[in-house]
């Protein structure tokens, strides 16, 4: 019997005070929908930027709109990365990795594609990103034993999203 076991026995009898040494508050609230919605925003921004491309020359208002759209695309690209990184870093552990060995590579791919989607105004890249984030969502729900289904979101950009069947 080691020292820890002995102290544990004394603890059971005397009930020592406990202190929390946790990191972030372990709220256990994780949901990939935030990342999925951020990708939808990026796709929508690319669509709206495409509409501006048809308008030449750009008025002052159009130029202001252009700046806002690019800024939002940039911001939501960062959001995709942040949301996926938190689920990957805090929720994904050994059991989930054993079940889905592709998780590390998929997460890394999402990071790279998000950067590419931020750098360019290219709808194909944002749609690739959505495929990857949808796959991540599928895996996430499967690790929780929740079935998923695909449906077209009922608002622009009207693309296919993975939803949990709760």
């Amino acid at each position, binding site marked *: 019997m080691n*020292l*820890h076991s002995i*102290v*544990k026995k004394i*603890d059971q009898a005397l009930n*020592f*005070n*406990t*202190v*929390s*040494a946790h*990191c*972030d*508050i372990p709220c256990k609230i994780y949901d990939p929908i935030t990342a999925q919605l951020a990708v939808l925003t990026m796709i929508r921004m690319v669509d709206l930027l495409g509409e501006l491309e048809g308008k030449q020359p750009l008025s002052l208002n159009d130029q202001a709109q252009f700046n806002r759209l690019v800024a939002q695309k940039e911001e939501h690209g960062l959001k995709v990365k942040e949301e996926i990184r938190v689920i990957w*870093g*805090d929720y994904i552990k050994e059991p989930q990795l054993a079940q889905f060995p592709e998780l590390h590579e998929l997460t890394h791919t999402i990071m790279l594609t998000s950067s590419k989607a931020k750098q360019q105004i290219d709808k194909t890249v944002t749609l690739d990103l959505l495929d990857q984030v949808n796959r991540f969502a599928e895996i996430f729900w499967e690790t929780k034993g929740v079935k998923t289904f695909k449906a077209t979101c009922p608002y622009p950009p009207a693309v296919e999203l993975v939803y949990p069947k709760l």
Partner: protein
Amino acid sequence: MSPTLDDGEYGCFFCYFFHYELKRKQIVAVDHPHFGRIVKRISFLDSQGYYWLLGDNPNSLSSDKMGPISPQRIKSILLFKIAK
């Protein structure tokens, strides 16, 4: 506080100390107004007399989130831990 302290480990804390004895980098048990009884490391003492805390893990609550801690809220100092 991972990797310094892991879940389920025991620590021996010293309660009878003067606050001027507290030093940077000491691990202390704190009665936090929002987070309850927590264990963190002292980062620094500011010019207003408040302590700022840090966790050892990169994902720890930030000093900003924990906020300034009055000396009275620091209840004890970790002397040693008993690992599993």
